[in-house]
């Protein structure tokens, strides 16, 4: 078999552009015809949130309300919401919002039932992690929505903002995962 003649770089670049353009058209068509596709474009993510965003660039997730420090404190004082700490066990043990339960986002499948199995799906939940630049809370909130929870809030400012405000905190406590995970 003869060695194939090499394409010129210009031809390669043009074909590469065709690949990208064809993929983009395919993506657009699939998005338009798939269930909920249009919703992704119009409301799934464009910086809008279902409530007042905790941070200007807090990710918006369908079914999840972003709340700021003031609203988080109101939820804390009202004692209606269950606080979920999405950080690692070590971070949780070194300081967390009093009463919060630790459900590390990367151990969700292992500990979801243990932590939230007996919680009603309509219960208000406030999820937080280690603040701006951390998306553990967002990921965890998405998973909670998928599990059927209907009142999930994310405090994107997270533990650093809460601690900086001088609000109540507690350290240590029993291993929230019942001896697992260490």
């Amino acid at each position, binding site marked *: 078999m003869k060695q194939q003649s090499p394409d010129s770089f210009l031809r390669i670049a043009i*074909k590469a552009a065709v*690949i990208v353009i064809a993929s*983009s058209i395919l993506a657009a068509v699939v998005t338009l015809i798939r269930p909920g596709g249009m919703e992704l474009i119009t409301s799934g993510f464009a910086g809008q949130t279902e409530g007042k965003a905790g941070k200007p660039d807090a990710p918006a997730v369908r079914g999840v309300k972003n709340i700021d420090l003031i609203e988080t404190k109101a939820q804390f004082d009202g004692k209606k919401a269950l606080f979920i700490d999405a950080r690692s066990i070590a971070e949780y043990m070194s300081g967390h919002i009093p009463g919060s339960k630790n459900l590390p986002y990367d151990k969700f499948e292992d500990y979801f039932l243990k932590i939230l199995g007996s919680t009603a799906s309509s219960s208000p939940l406030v999820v937080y992690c280690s603040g701006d630049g951390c998306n553990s809370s*967002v990921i965890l909130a998405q998973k909670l929505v998928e599990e059927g929870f209907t009142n999930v809030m994310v405090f994107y400012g997270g533990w650093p903002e809460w601690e900086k405000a001088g609000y109540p905190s507690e350290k240590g406590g029993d291993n929230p995962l019942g001896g697992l995970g260490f």
Partner: protein
Amino acid sequence: MKKFATHWVVLLILRLGMAALFIAACLPKIMKPDQFIVAVHNYRVLPQVLVTPFALTLPWVELMAGLLLLAGFWTRPAALVSSLMYLAFAIAVSSAVIRGFDIGCGCFAAEGAKPITFWYILRDLSLLGVSIWLLLAGPGTASIDAVNSSRRSGV
């Protein structure tokens, strides 16, 4: 060395490996686009208005590049697309690691279950290297490109 780098078996393994990676990477993103949109947003390297279009398009570019590499058709153009993607991924991951973001990669799972580390930068740079290798060396003889080329040459 050059003989090894352009040996058809080596090129076939690299091509199929890259194809498998792209196809494995794109499927979760196509299945859960909303989670991948958030993962892209969290890198904060794109203007807000581009986040959704980019996140909805990228998995299909990955799929297309993966299928072309699998078939060995338009191998060099697909390798160029692959090179540009891995260069972009390496830059995005580096910028997030440098800024200390505790975010998921969004590489092989839409939501990015594990936080990114320097290891991810090395991985992207390695895959960039393989993509450039395929771009320079071409598809090898075990490919549709080679068959088409032979036909054109009248062999």
